[in-house]
């Protein structure tokens, strides 16, 4: 099952049921080659989707293609995938070097080549010095790095990472981010799942937002921010003449309501923040008001995430504007 040329991942109405529990629900997406963040709260269906992509689960309904091939029981596709599952790998008496080498040999590399690649991958993730320490004596952060090393070591075309930065210290995290970015720059595909948005933002600006097993939004951060512009929201303004500004905003119907909350501050409620942002400079100029500060109450990606979840609870799906 091939999608359009260059399609890295193709999902067609993919549903996964565990008995009567829905893992993912009617997912449809076509993702070209690139890097994507899969973002959603715990239990949102991220791991189910990743397990479907890596062929460890079979969709109950719908079809999946990864790199143009169905992933279930597909040994040829396994050659091209690097997978870092969320689960903490733990053979207590085995060293990271032995473990990565073992997985490389299972991948099909000869003993000597597996050793070389394992050494190189462990060095890349910063585990060169502790590569011969048993995993049982390694910290969780070290094991997390070993997990990334085993996913990278065979130079896969597509890297699928589930919560890769969990328990990794800031320095290690930075190193891992750089490593992943380097792969992206080399044109390799990456899908990175996390419930922490800043982790995803550090790697890519394209993401899929999933909640309750449904795809809430997809696209670049800018595209989803653009969607946000159409969401009702509150904007805080500080100005030298707040009452005058409030009157102007209400007269021009840029604001639905205005609250004066301080000597020089007002809070503007609007159904169309995009229009407010576009017309505010002219309005301010016309009214002869000086604005010192404009602050959207919801400006971060986290806020975007929360806003989308609120919409999701109302079962409204956002579509990017044409």
């Amino acid at each position: 099952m091939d999608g359009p040329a260059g399609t890295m991942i193709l999902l067609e109405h993919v549903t996964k049921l565990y008995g009567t529990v829905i893992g993912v629900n009617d997912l449809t997406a076509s993702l070209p080659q690139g890097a994507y963040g899969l973002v959603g709260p715990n239990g949102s269906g991220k791991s189910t989707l990743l397990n479907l992509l890596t062929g460890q689960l079979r969709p109950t309904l719908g079809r999946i293609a990864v790199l143009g091939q169905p992933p279930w029981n597909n040994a040829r596709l396994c050659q091209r995938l690097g997978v870092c599952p969320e689960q903490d790998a733990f053979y207590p008496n085995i060293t990271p070097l032995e473990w990565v080498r073992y997985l490389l040999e299972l991948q099909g590399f000869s003993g000597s080549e597996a050793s070389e690649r394992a050494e190189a991958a462990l060095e890349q993730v910063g585990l060169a010095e502790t590569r011969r320490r048993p995993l049982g004596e390694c910290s969780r952060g070290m094991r997390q790095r070993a997990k990334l090393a085993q996913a990278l070591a065979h130079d896969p075309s597509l890297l699928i990472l589930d919560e890769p930065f969990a328990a990794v210290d800031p320095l290690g995290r930075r190193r891992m981010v750089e490593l992943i970015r380097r792969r992206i720059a080399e044109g390799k595909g990456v899908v990175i799942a996390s419930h922490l948005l800043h982790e995803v933002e550090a790697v890519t600006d394209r993401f899929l937002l999933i909640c309750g097993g449904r795809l809430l939004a997809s696209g670049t951060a800018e595209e989803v921010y653009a969607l946000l512009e159409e969401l009702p929201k509150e904007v805080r303004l500080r100005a030298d003449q707040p009452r005058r500004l409030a009157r102007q905003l209400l007269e021009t119907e840029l604001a639905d309501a205005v609250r004066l909350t301080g000597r020089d501050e007002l809070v503007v409620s609007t159904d169309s923040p995009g229009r407010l942002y576009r017309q505010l400079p002219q309005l301010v100029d016309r009214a002869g008001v000086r604005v010192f500060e404009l602050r959207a109450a919801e400006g971060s990606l986290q806020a975007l995430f929360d806003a989308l979840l609120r919409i999701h609870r109302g079962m409204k799906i956002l579509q990017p504007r044409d």
Partner: protein
Amino acid sequence: MELAQRILVVIRFECRRGMILSRVATALVLAVFPLALVLLVRTQGGDLETGPRGPGILFALLPGLTCLMCLLLWAIPAIHSEVEGSTWPYLAVRPGGKSAVLLGKYLTAVAWTTAVGWLGVSLCAMTMRLSDRLETWCVLGILILLSALAYGALFVLLGVVFLRRAMVLAVGYAFIMEFLTGFIPAVIHRFTIQYHLRSLLSQWTGWTPASLGGAFHQLSLFSPWPAWGHLLALLGGTAALLAAAGCILRQRELIKPESE
């Protein structure tokens, strides 16, 4: 060929991983257990060694009890231990990983079990008052290997089908099918591994319960088949059980929704 190489990789890794004090100690205890039992009976004035009793008791203790205990410990959890230890997803995403891990871990369990059995039979052959030590050692050595292969395949299949309750089911199966049904003088006992192993012992050593006297004499507990028939049944059954385990494993989803 690639699968064979991957199986060897798994065996090597599992042997390295299994070289821990607790497992080696368990193996030694299981190897010494038959001899300890025989010597205990000897100190109490009993005799399990001389005449036809020797091969019979060693058969019951080594290819029977010891092999089963080893395989309960090492063959049944072959896949379950990987799933429980959260290491399965790393193996399952390798090309042919599922089959390689299944067969590699099965063969590792067979190797450990056979080693324990061979050590046990060696200790017994050196210590017990057997009429023909070398013959007993050779025959029991082969039967231990066949027992490990056949029971190992059966237990691996049970472990794949019933991930969580496999140990209980295997103990139940061993007791009901192998030790109760296996001694029922009816056609059903031909479907037990015990029956074929027992028949081979009889053919290769001339041992029969009839030589012990008593009620066994009347029972058709042995097969008139030639030895190759039993070997075929055991090895063919082993291959069929492993093939079934492999097919089931290939179709099973071993990722649980709790892992979300």
